[in-house]
């Protein structure tokens, strides 16, 4: 018996391969394409699926610079971190944004075309936001793993061609 329900299985498969066809999903999960299409529509409508994207390896050669920014903020009396987080999230430069536990409060991944681009965003836009107390910028140097995929995986099929 499958260890997951149908909706969870569809999500898991799409996370692994966003280009998988409705037909293949139906065949793998032994159901109809109509059922799969309904599930996907529902997941999209409920914003459980936010989009479909390519997982790329090419960050350091592409014309973009990524940095993690650790931000300490002063929470507001009624809204906590939400108002300031939502304000920061609206910047196009911010690719992902989390509220985290630990030494800082907001954890951002910021994308720019150059070091100066990112530095400018942090110094002019981010640190000047009301409530922001400090920013630590960590430029990403090399990617080893992305979305569960290890880059430069050297493991091939080492099995014998026929075994009992």
């Amino acid at each position, binding site marked *: *018996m*499958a*260890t*997951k329900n149908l909706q969870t*299985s569809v999500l*898991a*498969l799409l996370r692994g391969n966003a280009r998988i066809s409705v037909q*293949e999903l139906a*065949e*793998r*999960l*032994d159901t109809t394409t109509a059922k799969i299409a309904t599930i996907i529509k529902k997941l999209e409508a409920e914003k459980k699926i936010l989009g479909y994207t390519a997982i790329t390896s090419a960050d350091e050669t592409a014309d973009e610079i990524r940095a993690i920014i650790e931000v300490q903020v002063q929470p507001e009396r009624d809204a906590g971190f939400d108002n300031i987080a939502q304000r920061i999230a609206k910047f196009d430069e911010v690719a992902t944004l989390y509220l985290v536990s630990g030494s800082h409060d907001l954890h951002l991944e910021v994308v720019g075309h150059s070091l100066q681009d990112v530095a400018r965003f942090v110094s002019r836009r981010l640190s000047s936001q009301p409530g922001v107390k400090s920013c630590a910028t960590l430029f990403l140097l090399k990617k080893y793993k992305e979305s569960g995929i290890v880059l430069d995986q050297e*493991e091939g*099929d080492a*099995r*014998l*061609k*026929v*075994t*009992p």
Partner: protein
Amino acid sequence: MRVSKSPHKTAAPRPRVAPHIAALPKSGIRDFFELVNAMEDVISLGIGEPDFVTPWKIREATIYSLQRGFTHYTSNLGDPKLRLAVCKYFARRFGGSYDPKTECIITVGVSEGLDIAARAVISPGDEVLYHEPCYVSYAPTVRMAHGVPIAVVTHAEHDFVLQVEDLEKAVTSKTKVLMLNYPNNPTGAGMTAEDKQKIAEFAVKHDLLVFSDEIYDELSYIPRSPSIATLPGMRDRTIVFNGFSKAFAMTGYRIGYAVGPHDLIDAMMKVHQYSMLCAPGPSQFGAIEALTNADGERETMHDEYEQRRNVIVKRFNGLGLHCFKPRGAFYVFPDIRSTGMTSMAFATSLLKEQRVAVIPGTAFGECGEGFVRCSYATSMADIETAMERIGKFLRKRGLP
């Protein structure tokens, strides 16, 4: 005065190989392997082991055990921590309760487990019932223990589930052991709780010992039911064999275990201590990690196999080769009789013409004639390509 004559001058030369070993057939897969191995670009559906590499946390735990210098003999029965982990895992996943100190032994895979169990309980002439088609080692294991293997045929119309009526025809006063392997290699057959109940009643009725090889149980695609050893009257007569190769993709680790009543495990331990001494230490440490910390990885692999099964079954039936939906393991056993070819001719022609390797059903017993074993422990992309090639192969012959 007695004159001694040299026996070497008159007697026939003594055979160098023991007759019962000389009489063993070589595994039918062997010849096929040689054929496949000599070819390039073959997509192999002939591999009886997971295509996944052992989950990293298990490999890492193994490496760490080496770093800490755990490179010595362990207890003959196996490291106590591993036996404890095995018994806890068994209770959690298969429903039976065993004492890690006296009712559990760590073996070098299920194959060694079956071998030492056979040598521990079989006396010359004892008959052992086993079902065919089956894994290639069963009959030889019995013969090497000087027992008499008696094959009980399972049938396509029962989706290869062993039937009590067929067992009743084969059982005699000399029958001592019944060997079971469900989920099954090569057919993918599996037993429901009801199927197990019937077999258990048969074993109790005839007072048989039962060797239950449950290596594929974690790869079940029907609601899992407790091990046959947990059914009434069964605990004291059943040795359950299981291991890490299939559920945790650890074939090369060569590590497995057996649980059963103390007297039988103790007897197996004697054979084990004088032949194997103990299972490899590093493998035992990897196995602890598998049992205690790798449920997620196991489930991910299980689900992937189940999905591939769904696809490959649909493809075979779509091509007109009837294929029942396996209840477990990672094999399908399509019926190729409609092609008019023997299993060997089918497999050989398919390999030569389309570069797809499948195993002739006859490698798993004569009653496998008319079927081939296809493993879906290979990527979905390779399965799709293989199935397209099999389609071409059939169309060239005007089939279906």
